[in-house]
């Protein structure tokens, strides 16, 4: 059967149009795929499952720790504000210049996947130092994340914690949620020196928290020396042996400003407070009570900062301490600045407002 020439011509034109539209469709799909892959897809994920975070900081060295997928090799480098450069072996930078801020980078597979900075301890006893204090924070909630952001913005030289680093207990499987994720930004820029509270000690005597944070002492008992500042961290409820150890540390220290950290706030008549007063500490930091309180007890400034994220709970158990000069039910952190022979204490709430300030 012979095809009608007009029909054949129409079919041919239809074939041409379909072919051209198909070609155009292929180009459009290829264009969308190219644009999607080039501009819309996220960068590959963070290979670090924890950290890197700073655990030690001296006048000439800094130690970082981390967890990375597949144990991939990590290349650490740091550049100082004075132009000096350093590379790390085993996560430890050495040969650094005292009193200098270093910007560090951590590369995996030749790509920088994490960065931060640290400020090496100054040698001069007159150098300004700023640090922050938090307590009772490890709940992993929005308030703790807010405190984490607040701390990061403060760019402290180091952070002290007054315990209860993880709720309800300090088990290793809870620590990323309760410590490392909320405080990630600040821990990339400053070491976190924690003492232990009852919630930490409840699980394996606090071993999981100690190991994860690479704390320098047992049960949260150790001393921090940073330029003109010495802090003795004394744990949940200092035993007579801990008090003797702390006295020895304070007597050996030549730092002009000394502080003590305990978990439970000290009360009038406490032998711990008597010793700390005799050794001339500037202030005692505590947690446990989920309030911010400023008290002068037996002549010693006591600052309670159990305000790091865990809620106040039943107000029946979160009462104002009689005799406190300031007592606030707010989430927040304490900023301490040592400069010019003075110490300035400021309590900042989770919105960044200064709710209390005192100079001594």
């Amino acid at each position, binding site marked *: 059967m012979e095809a009608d020439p007009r029909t054949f011509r129409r079919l*041919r034109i239809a*074939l*041409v*149009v*379909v*072919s*051209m539209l*198909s*070609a155009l469709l292929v*180009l459009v799909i290829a264009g969308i795929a190219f644009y999607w892959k080039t501009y819309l897809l996220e960068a590959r994920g963070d290979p670090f499952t924890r950290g890197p975070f700073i655990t030690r900081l001296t006048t000439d060295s800094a130690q970082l720790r981390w967890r990375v997928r597949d144990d991939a090799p990590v290349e650490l480098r740091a550049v100082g504000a004075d132009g000096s450069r350093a590379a790390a072996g085993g996560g430890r930078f050495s040969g650094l210049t005292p009193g200098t801020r270093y910007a560090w980078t951590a590369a995996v597979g030749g790509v920088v996947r994490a960065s931060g900075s640290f400020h090496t301890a100054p040698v001069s006893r007159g150098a300004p130092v700023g640090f922050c204090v938090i307590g009772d924070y490890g709940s992993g909630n929005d308030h703790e994340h807010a405190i984490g952001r607040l701390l990061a913005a403060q760019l402290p030289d180091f952070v002290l914690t007054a315990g209860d680093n993880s709720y309800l207990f300090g088990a290793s499987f809870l620590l990323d949620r309760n410590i490392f994720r909320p405080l990630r930004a600040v821990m990339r820029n400053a070491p976190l020196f924690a003492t232990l509270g009852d919630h930490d000690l409840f699980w394996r005597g606090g071993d999981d928290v100690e190991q994860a944070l690479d704390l320098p002492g047992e049960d949260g008992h150790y001393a921090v020396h940073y330029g003109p500042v010495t802090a003795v961290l004394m744990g949940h409820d200092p035993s007579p042996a801990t008090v003797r150890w702390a006295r020895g540390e304070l007597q050996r220290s030549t730092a002009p400003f000394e502080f003590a950290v305990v978990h439970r706030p000290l009360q009038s008549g406490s032998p711990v407070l008597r010793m700390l007063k005799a050794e001339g500490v500037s202030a005692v930091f505590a947690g446990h009570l989920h309030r911010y309180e400023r008290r002068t007890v037996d002549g010693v400034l006591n600052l309670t900062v159990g305000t790091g994220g865990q809620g106040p709970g039943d107000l029946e158990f979160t009462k104002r301490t009689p005799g406190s000069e300031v007592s606030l039910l707010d989430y927040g952190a304490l900023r301490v600045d040592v400069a010019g022979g003075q110490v300035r204490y400021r309590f900042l709430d989770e919105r960044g407002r200064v709710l209390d300030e005192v100079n001594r």
Partner: protein
Amino acid sequence: MRTLRAVLLIAAAAALLASLLLPRPAVFAPLALAGLVLFVVGAGSAAAEAFPFRRLPFACSAAAIPLGLLLLVRGPDLMPLAVSAAATAIQLAPVLRR
């Protein structure tokens, strides 16, 4: 399909002229447009030359498709010039043969 052949020839010649006269990156837009035309119209022209099948015109039309793609993806400095010259020559072949 003389119209399609004419469009292919004009697109290839325009790409050749642009490659010769325009600097980078001003040349990218006309090359991309010419590449798009060569790719799409080349597909239509190849279909037209397939029924009834005419070997040389079909081959020249089909060749326009990869050449159009090459113009679209750009490449080293001399590649657009070589590709557009080849496309012009290939589209001229069936016209001169006629």
